[in-house]
């Protein structure tokens, strides 16, 4: 196995961008305030100084324009990595992304791939209120033609970003504001993490928790604690990719554990949990000992006031309660 280093999610992203810029002349970065300002969240710190303005491009505040320009450049074979300051602003580029980026390869009969990456952080909990705290990954995960990845660890951030940059399709790479400072072990070397594959990050026999991005970290931390403190053996599946969705790994896990809880930071209705609950009843109906439960955000424009924000966003306490209820209802506790 490769030696490992401990680094933050931010550092993993930064280093990967730098390495991909060094590896391939066709790779360049563009986005608002990523160069001189070094990025709103400093993921691109130092890269303008090292690579110059041809490779690290500060754009006007024109999301539709520069995201579309990245798609157009990708059609000619370049490999742009676009940063959208937060996922909330990506809505301004939806036409270019959904009506064009996701369609161009198929709609024109496979003549022109669109090898671009759109990096953007989602997530709430920073008292940024309703317009700056959203999780809109489901909007993108809904659309055929995109690949949508949601890394939860520095190691996956690195491996998935490498895969995304080297992939020939538009990849929506969704980070999470609250993960930037989290640390984890990152293998050395030029490894990649396969797109479209979930990972069982903790094995267990009592129930399956399915989560992604920041919620996968919360789920794994909680599962380890519950095992130590209460003897509950929870299996944790980190989806890593929302499109394609690795239904097989989820179903296989639930067939082993007979119970499932899905946790997401996004709003409840029409979410990843709904999609997985449907998948689990299709693939593991006869194996289920309890209804599939979902832990998701309250469906409100997220308020600024801290007690309200805390109440609205899913956390380990919510997940603990639902795990207990799922085990209780099936007489397993």
């Amino acid at each position, binding site marked *: 196995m490769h030696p490992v280093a401990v680094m933050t999610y931010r550092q993993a992203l930064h280093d990967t961008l730098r390495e991909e810029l060094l590896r391939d002349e066709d790779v360049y970065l563009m986005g608002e305030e990523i160069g001189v300002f070094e990025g709103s969240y400093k993921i691109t710190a130092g890269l303008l100084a090292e690579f110059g303005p041809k490779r690290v491009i500060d754009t006007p505040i*024109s999301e539709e324009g520069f995201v579309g320009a990245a798609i*157009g*450049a990708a059609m000619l074979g370049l490999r742009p990595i676009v940063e959208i300051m937060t996922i909330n602003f990506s809505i301004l580029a939806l036409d270019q992304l959904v009506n064009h980026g996701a369609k161009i390869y198929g*709609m*024109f009969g496979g003549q022109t791939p669109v090898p671009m990456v759109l990096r953007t952080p989602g997530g709430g909990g920073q008292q940024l209120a309703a317009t700056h705290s959203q999780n809109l990954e489901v909007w993108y995960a809904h659309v*055929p033609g995109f690949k949508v990845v949601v890394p939860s660890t520095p190691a996956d951030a690195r491996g998935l970003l490498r895969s995304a940059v080297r992939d020939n*399709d538009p990849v929506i790479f969704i980070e999470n504001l609250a993960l930037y400072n989290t640390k984890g072990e990152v293998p050395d070397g030029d490894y990649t993490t396969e797109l479209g594959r979930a990972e069982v990050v903790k094995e267990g026999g009592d129930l399956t928790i399915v989560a992604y991005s920041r919620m996968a970290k919360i789920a794994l931390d909680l599962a380890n604690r519950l095992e130590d403190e209460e003897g509950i053996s929870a299996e944790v599946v980190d989806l890593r990719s929302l499109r*394609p969705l690795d239904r097989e790994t989820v179903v296989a896990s639930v067939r082993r554990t007979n119970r499932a809880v899905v946790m997401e930071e996004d709003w409840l209705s029409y979410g990843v949990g709904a999609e997985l609950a449907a998948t689990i009843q*299709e*693939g593991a109906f006869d194996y289920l000992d309890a209804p599939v439960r979902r832990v998701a955000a309250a469906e409100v424009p997220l308020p600024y006031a801290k007690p309200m924000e805390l109440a609205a966003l899913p956390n380990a306490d919510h997940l603990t309660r639902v795990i207990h209820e799922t085990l209780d209802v099936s007489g397993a506790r």
Partner: protein
Amino acid sequence: MATDQKPAPRRRGQGTKRAADAFAGEKPGTLVDYYRTMWLLRRFEERCVELYQRARIGGYCHLNLGEEATVVGLMAALEPRDYLFTNYREHGYALAKGIEAGRVMAELFGKATGVSRGRGGSMHLFDAEARLMGGYAIVGGQIPLATGAAHAIVYRGGDEVVMCQMGDGTVNTGAFHECLNMAQLWKLPIVYVIVNNLTGMGTKVEAASAEPELYRRACAYRMASERVDGNDLLAVRDTARRAVDRARAESQPTLLEAVSFRMRGHSVVDPARYRSKEEVEQGRAQDPVVAFRARLIAAGVLGEAEVAELEADVEKELQQAVDFADASPDPTVEELFDDVYASPVANAPRALPGDPAWR
């Protein structure tokens, strides 16, 4: 940064020189080629009306009827290596960029031999080899893409030029403004062309644009711009050439406006009741195809017999195109999921309606 707004004709037909003068310095063979392409476009679109009414062509179908001088003039200004992005009214551009009529017609028929392999239809023609980089059916959608293509050319140090065609309604989209700004800021080799056919779907330019002289929009970006009579093929070509040369030699963008006339409704099924009879008659009286033919005959470039021969030849080509499209196979349903991704990926969905998502 001076805007190159020379006093171009403000109205169609104004300032037309005498035919013989206008052809000074032109090669007769080239003029005949232009006419043949215009006639091909004219007859192709007229065949489309008929084939649409016979349900051989589905979806929406927008025609270039009346815009032939603009289309052929613009394409004459491009080199084969130059890229073209258009909107959804683009059959003529595909033909004038050199794509065989049969492959265009096959696309309209939804056949596997179509330029977009039957995936795109009338509004989404694409041909990598001809560098027709797509017809785009969301108004303004092609502008950021074309701008990015021009950026890619600069990035790689190439000498190609991008032409980005759009209709008059497009100038009021955000994408138009965002991209003209970026193109000038980054000095991109691109020619934005507004084909002002005086009407959106049914909305007059004056009712949609506070500055109805659309080429003036470029002022806000210190971008060179010109307006040209879209019924005058040679004027369109020469104006476009200046812009293309500026893009290629100086890596500078230009905004062109070609004032043209849409002979029919917005699409095949639109009877265009929102236009007055006088307006339509006035537009048709300036039919650029008829006018160009008359000028060629008057100048002695073409004789009546040659015209008849050329037009019969076009008829034959079109019939072959229709026959080719007719005889071509449909794409197979087994290919349905093949073009979703360029890089194969684990767990890509392949469920047809009614299939379980998981199996």
